[in-house]
């Protein structure tokens, strides 16, 4: 187990560097981002020169990469000109907080809804409810996130006016008591969280279902029955314990989808999160900022996967001893 963990963490290092390299290359090899800055009358030439130096643009490309990577690691992320010279770290911190808040919420929602349903479907394969849930799962998988958001907004925001149609909080509530703010926040988050969860749920249901179906076929489930255990114990103890092991990998698998989905959901609902930040950075050709956000999102994904793998090793006794 210890070896497994150390190996797993060591394997991550080239990945971290590689992702940084790709991010760096993609956003640098295309051209000089400062060429576009120069066209902008709002930016002073000396600012450009200062930034060129700060980002190492006066260095050869490989040295520039190391300089950049080092400044990334040390948290020295610079300032974003298009956001009025605010420090990138501050922009990212705020955005990351919003993104985490609502992705984690939808992650939990998706997990607690999808996994039990998937398990249920497997146990009652070919029952009416199984068909219903299968349909539901495909529905979720096939629905473009933004379109689904539109529909929900049209129904709950425009027609019924139950929920706000965008933003993250009602203006003027910044200093209200905590509970009031929480309630307010919940109101704003319901739609985006549901949309994002809905999008992930379908895949999870199918995955949990097939994982459980796979386990039910195994010899040891027959052994458990032959022992005289009740069907409940056979399913919920012997089978489920095994089925949950691959389901844990979902934690890792789900993160890319969540990050991608979050980008769209944030845009539709006007949540100032990481996705929106990346998007705006790209729209404004603010490459230094985009590089930070892209790198951070990738690292989020890599660490999420690491977490899932560790959890996997904890639950599966077969990994402990290798």
């Amino acid at each position: 187990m210890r070896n497994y963990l150390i190996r797993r963490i060591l394997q991550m290092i080239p990945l971290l560097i590689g992702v940084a390299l790709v991010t760096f290359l993609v956003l640098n090899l295309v051209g000089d981002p400062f060429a576009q800055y120069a066209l902008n009358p709002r930016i002073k030439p000396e600012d450009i020169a200062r930034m060129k130096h700060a980002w190492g643009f006066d260095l050869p490309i490989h040295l520039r990469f190391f300089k950049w990577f080092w400044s990334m690691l040390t948290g020295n992320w610079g300032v974003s000109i298009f956001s009025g010279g605010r420090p990138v770290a501050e922009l990212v911190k705020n955005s990351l907080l919003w993104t985490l808040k609502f992705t984690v919420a939808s992650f939990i929602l998706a997990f607690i809804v999808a996994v039990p349903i998937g398990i249920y479907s497997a146990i009652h394969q070919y029952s009416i409810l199984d068909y219903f849930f299968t349909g539901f799962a495909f529905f979720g998988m096939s629905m473009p996130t933004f379109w689904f958001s539109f529909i929900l907004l049209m129904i709950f925001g425009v027609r019924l006016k139950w929920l706000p149609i965008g933003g993250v909080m009602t203006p003027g509530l910044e200093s209200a008591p905590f509970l009031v703010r929480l309630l307010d926040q919940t109101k704003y988050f319901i739609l985006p969280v549901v949309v994002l969860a809905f999008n992930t749920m379908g895949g999870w249901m199918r995955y949990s279902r097939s994982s459980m179906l796979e386990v039910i076929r195994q010899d040891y489930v027959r052994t458990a029955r032959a022992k005289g255990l009740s069907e409940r114990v056979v399913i919920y103890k012997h089978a489920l314990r095994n089925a949950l092991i691959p389901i844990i990998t979902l934690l890792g698998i789900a993160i890319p989808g969540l990050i991608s989905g979050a980008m769209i959901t944030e845009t539709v609902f006007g949540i100032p999160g990481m996705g929106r930040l990346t998007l705006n950075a790209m729209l404004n050709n603010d490459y230094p900022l985009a590089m930070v956000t892209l790198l951070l999102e990738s690292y989020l994904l890599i660490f999420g996967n690491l977490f899932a793998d560790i959890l996997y090793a904890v639950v599966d006794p077969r990994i402990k001893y290798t």
Partner: protein
Amino acid sequence: MAISQEYESELTTYKAETYWQIVFKRLKKHKLAIISLVLLIIIILACLIGPFFVKYHYNDMSNYDPDNPFVGEYKPPSKYHLFGTDELGRDTLSRILYGGRISLFVGFASVFSAIIIGVFVGAISGYYGGILDTLLMRFTDIMFSIPVMPLLVVLATIIPGGGVWKIILVITIFGWMTDARLVRGVYLSLKEQEFTEAARAIGASNSRIIWKHLLPNSMAPIIVSSTLGVGGNIIYEASLSYLGFGIMPPTPSWGNMLQNAQSAMFNAPWLIWFPGIAIFITVLAFNFLGDGLRDALDPRLKL
């Protein structure tokens, strides 16, 4: 020797169905997959032929006509414009049919090119193993570690142009890794099978084994993943277009038709409904078909 002629006919003749007959027979039992297949054929035909039969060109902006309240901008569905008109008074139906061509083409073409790259990388990696495999797979891991949507947006920005081919290129750049991993996995397991060893034992060359023995045996998962992939890519195209990084107007695609729709939510909901439904139904059909194919091609069902 061994078997006397008299009895043999009774002993041996199983039904002589080919692999694809068996697969199709299994697929037929999957009602939703068959319905989806039919539906997809209809959708594809409609998009291909449809534009020749509709009254309006997709870019026609019908002029204001004081005598006809159904013609003009933001008109709801009527017998003149079955799916209504958009902010410029263009016929939504015509745009959906034409946009379908674009969306479907993007879906198919990017899946196709991703498969070419993915199969090549996966096959080489899985068959030869060693350093080559390690390098290719580490690169795949890296590509996998960058979240798709942000990467798409970045790629769409830095690659110049706004056409269909650019979007296909962009989707291909991130899309090949799934196929590569898939094919590699299949090759790794097939490589251990005795029929691969048998091919080596008779003296078959590596390239013969890779392309003639192993590739046909990895078709099943590739077919399933591409079917699901077409649907997925249609959604990616739509999402990119919605974010403003996709197919650029005036060329219609299902995605960019929805681009301005958010602001039309209050007064022209049909502009949201129709393109969305087109995407949804098409993707749903691809997903059902892919699921049916997965069951029909399941390698665990012994042949």
